[in-house]
């Protein structure tokens, strides 16, 4: 049986751990609110962009379509972009994303495709490196960004397009976590290139009039598609960020609760031990007195 002092020390240490997890939970809650706001604020842009793309891609098709929309015409080399968080202490958040990525990669490899992996976020890189070191082609460091903004998405988008222009892959997928709620984030795989016109986005009703394009349709689509790709990446990063804080919040909530339980148990044992000690001392005194 540990001594009373050892109990006291352990209780104190668990208490300070609890304070830390509690603080982290509250910080995560505040940041989650902001991240959720950011993800929501980015939605109008994505929606408008989607409807413009849907509208344009229906009129520009076939040979004249930009490469980003029509692809390379082949399906041999796949790039998997895995977006995870830079930091941990968020429960199974990153593991979930990595698992989705692994399933996708395994499926592609089973089909005999060549797979290249690009990671954004340290945690995903660390986990994937163990399994697919040979397939890793790059990593984008986002640790410098305290909050995700358009330039972070552009960083990834530039890299992906640079590789695409150099014919390093035919199809690109983006793996990230969709934010549903604080306790539920859904790992999602989305095709990035060739760009798919979003489903459910209706071209606007023109009331019989025809669009005027300035300059031409193809030029507009050419200029628009890179931004569309960036926009999708940004949305994914923002969803990821919100999901990360959500996961961190619930993980820290659990940790705080566990610490509470542990403190309760330790206190109980501490008190028992203390009482046992007192009883023992009393018995010693009494039996000493009786012996006289």
């Amino acid at each position, binding site marked *: 049986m540990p001594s009373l002092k050892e109990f006291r020390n352990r209780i104190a240490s668990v208490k300070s751990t609890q304070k830390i997890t509690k603080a982290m939970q509250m910080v995560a809650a505040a940041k989650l609110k902001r991240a959720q706001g950011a993800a929501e604020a980015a939605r109008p842009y994505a929606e408008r962009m989607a409807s413009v793309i849907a509208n*344009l891609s229906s009129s520009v098709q076939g040979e004249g379509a930009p490469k980003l929309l029509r692809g390379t015409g082949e399906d041999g080399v796949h790039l998997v972009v895995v977006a995870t968080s830079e930091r941990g202490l968020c429960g199974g958040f990153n593991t979930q994303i990595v698992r989705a990525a692994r399933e996708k990669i395994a499926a592609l490899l089973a089909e005999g495709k060549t797979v290249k992996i690009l990671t954004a976020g340290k945690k995903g890189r660390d986990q994937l490196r163990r399994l697919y070191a040979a397939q890793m082609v790059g990593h984008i460091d986002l640790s410098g960004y305290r909050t995700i903004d358009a330039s972070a998405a552009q960083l990834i988008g530039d890299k992906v397009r640079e590789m695409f222009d150099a014919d390093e892959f035919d199809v690109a997928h983006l793996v990230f976590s969709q934010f549903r709620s604080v306790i539920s984030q859904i790992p999602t795989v989305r095709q990035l290139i060739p760009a798919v016109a979003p489903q459910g986005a209706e071209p606007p009703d023109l009331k019989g009039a025809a669009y005027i394009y300035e300059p031409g349709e193809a030029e507009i689509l050419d200029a628009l598609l890179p931004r569309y790709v960036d926009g999708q990446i940004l949305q994914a990063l923002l969803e990821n960020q919100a999901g990360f804080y959500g996961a961190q919040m619930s993980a820290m909530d659990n940790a705080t609760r566990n610490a509470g339980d542990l403190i309760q148990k330790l206190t109980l044992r501490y008190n028992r031990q203390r009482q046992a000690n007192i009883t023992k001392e009393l018995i010693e005194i009494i039996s000493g007195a009786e012996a006289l």
Partner: protein
Amino acid sequence: MAEKLTFALVSPERELFHGEVDQVVVPGTEGEFGVLPDHAPLMSTIKPGALRIMNGADERRIFVNGGFADVTPDGLTVLAEDAVDLAEVDSAKLEQDIKDFEEDVRDAKDDAHKTQAERALARAQAMKAALMR
């Protein structure tokens, strides 16, 4: 003029402006154009420059760093890369920024930093040009 134009200015990060206005002048790549209510459907790319929002006697000038304008019967939507209200831009600070960015371009260690610095410089210079007019 009773009728108003529904105008929305959105950047990738958030919606910057949404409301009813009289007229918007957009810096299109093939020249500036004004959009009034009931404009014909039009889609145009935008070059970096000042976007003017006119509402009654009010005129707001907003710097947009490239993007798209989409006119539909429902109104005008501008998808901007980024946008800054020119009334909030301090010209002295902008000059300083341009100098800083120029230095960044010179001192850039690798290509990635250089392109980033050049991008920032181009943006600041375009903003200055918009401010001067």
